[in-house]
């Protein structure tokens, strides 16, 4: 266990599922880059345990499998994220990334999940849908069906878990909606129908709606797909600031290999439904991790301006 996160106080407790030490601070991601190359799966330590060392786990997934009929989509996937952590889920198309996200939301209509999923220390199955919604929000993949609502209406709908059966919103609800629009700087287009927005604006509107939910965990399904470079980098910065400044625990499925490098935290690579890599983002650089997962060559450069690593697919 000596390999995890230099600079971090050692916790005597080896049972890392939920240690008593609870600095619910979001700076974990800031600390992580220091541990370059450390704590990868190679050193014999269990990265699933190492991931939450020293802080309570927000999401713990152990030996999780999911199949529809006799088609196995996820097979023995395991990971965990501490409070305020940032997990990027990577992998080739069809690896089961979106399915994993849907399983965390209990969105699967058919199919049988097996294994353990815990959110905030409780088994996923023990939550009612509304209780779960108060903990976990979700930003869907853009494209496809566009809800026939305005930015504001969509954000207000996110207050459903707090409202009674009759849809009346309290001042606290409205304040949460306003704050979400402010963070995403969408206040000036609150009344615009989603349909009239550009792809980038619409994705921000979905993000605002998820933020209005006020949940400590946010799941994102390829938030930057279909966006132009400017909107992609804007959204990326927004997500990182939500993690660092608002303390949200982020779980993002993404194809952009450089986003995890900037956000820090942890990466999970799925390949054909299995864990190909789980460990700190730094472990992605070199060591053949990406090459193995994607069956493709990558080049690792250093950004000339800020010295950050850049991953380039050949």
């Amino acid at each position, binding site marked *: 266990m000596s390999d995890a996160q230099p600079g971090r106080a050692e916790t005597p407790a080896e049972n890392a599922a939920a240690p008593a030490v609870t600095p619910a601070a979001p700076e974990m991601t800031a600390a992580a880059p220091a541990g370059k190359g450390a704590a990868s799966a190679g050193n014999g330590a269990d990265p699933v345990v190492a991931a939450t060392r020293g802080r309570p786990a927000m999401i713990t997934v152990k030996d999780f499998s999911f199949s529809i009929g006799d088609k196995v989509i996820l097979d023995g996937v395991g990971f965990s994220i501490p409070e305020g952590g940032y997990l990027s889920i990577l992998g080739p198309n069809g690896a089961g990334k979106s399915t994993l996200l*849907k399983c965390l*939301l*209990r*969105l699967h*209509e058919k199919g049988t999940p097996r294994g353990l999923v815990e959110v905030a220390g409780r088994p996923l199955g023990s939550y*009612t*849908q*509304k*209780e*779960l*919604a*108060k903990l*976990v*929000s*979700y930003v*869907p993949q853009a494209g496809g*069906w*566009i*809800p*026939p*609502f*305005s930015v*504001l*209406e*969509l*954000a*207000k*709908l*996110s207050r*459903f*878990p707090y*409202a009674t*059966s*009759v*849809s*009346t*919103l309290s*001042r606290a609800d*409205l*304040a949460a*909606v*306003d*704050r979400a*629009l*402010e963070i995403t*700087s969408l*206040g*000036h287009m*609150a*009344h615009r*129908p989603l*349909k009239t927005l550009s792809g980038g604006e619409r994705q921000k509107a979905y993000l605002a*709606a*998820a933020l209005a*939910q006020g949940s400590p965990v946010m*799941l994102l399904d390829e938030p930057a797909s279909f966006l132009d470079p400017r909107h992609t980098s804007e959204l990326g910065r927004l997500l990182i600031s939500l993690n660092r400044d608002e303390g949200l625990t982020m779980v993002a499925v993404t194809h952009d290999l450089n986003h995890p490098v900037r956000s820090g935290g942890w990466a999970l690579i799925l390949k054909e439904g299995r864990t190909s890599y789980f460990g700190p983002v730094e472990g992605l650089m070199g060591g053949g991790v990406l090459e193995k997962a994607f069956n493709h060559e990558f080049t690792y450069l250093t950004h000339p301006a800020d010295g950050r690593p850049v991953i380039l697919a050949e």
Partner: protein
Amino acid sequence: MRESAGGAALKTSPGGAAGKARPGFKVAALIIGSLAVTALSPFFGLSVISPADIMLPDHPDAEVFWRLRAPRAAAAFLAGAGLSLSGMVFQAFFRNPLATPFTLGVSSGASFGASLYFYLGGTFLIRLGGVGPLFASLMGAGFSMFLVWSITRVKGGFSTVIMLLAGVVINFFFSSLVLFVQYLSDSHDSLRIMHWLMGSLAGLETARLADLAFVILAGSVIFRLMAAEIDLLTAGEEIAASRGVRVGLTKIKLFVTASVMVGSVVSLAGPIGFVGLMVPHACRLTLGWAHRLLIPAVFFTGGCFLVLCDLASRLILAPAEIPIGIVTSMLGGPFFLWTLFRSQKTGDLF
């Protein structure tokens, strides 16, 4: 609307929709207008009845007013409200404006149930009395909904195309079964089935009005209580689930309620087509998709719309009366096409 960086939610009225006037006022105006038209409609018909006469006991006009026209207007109102609301729910559910009790095959399923009852009712062991047709329609409606549901589900999700195709197939299937039953029946029953299939409020039994009122009002209240869930389902199932809606359960509740409403209307008035297509669509054009407001608007507009159609069906060939289903279908056909072409132009179906 005011535009400022923050405070959009706190400053404006809740549920802001398209248009400048506050949508609440629009709904109130719609409700008042619809009720006024409905209340005035029994005065018109073959003869115009003077308001002064209806309170006179034993006056023949008072008799016509209270015994014939008022119950019929009430039935038309309830049927219109029920068909429109269930159409609205199906559309939110499938996120498709062409989903209606008719296109989904619910109407023909209910028709089959009812015609089977007309055929077997007199001869068979089943003697349910007055609620017989209602019960049989509900069974038929439920069965056809179940079929459409299963087909779309087996073929993967609720794809619009699959759903519409399944509806069309089920529709044909049950229509042929109805024809089969009709063929087996004697000429009296056959004529009765045929008249009823055209959709008519003429043979309405007043005793059944209370059943209808109960089903439609209870269903409307259920929908209204689920307005937020319906909104979220409209936004998408994944969004709904992540916001705390139990999607599966909610869908079943909505499906069953809507099917029961359609079944009860069909059992009394026959399969009156296109109401569930036209009314919700027209209401959405002015009010948007916030179901909190849309539900009362659709309820009253739908009721009023069918009352007017009924009046037209009595006046067009007066003194003869044409089935109301013919009136609504003559309006609905062009409307359906207009929706289709408009959707092609704007690129999406709403």
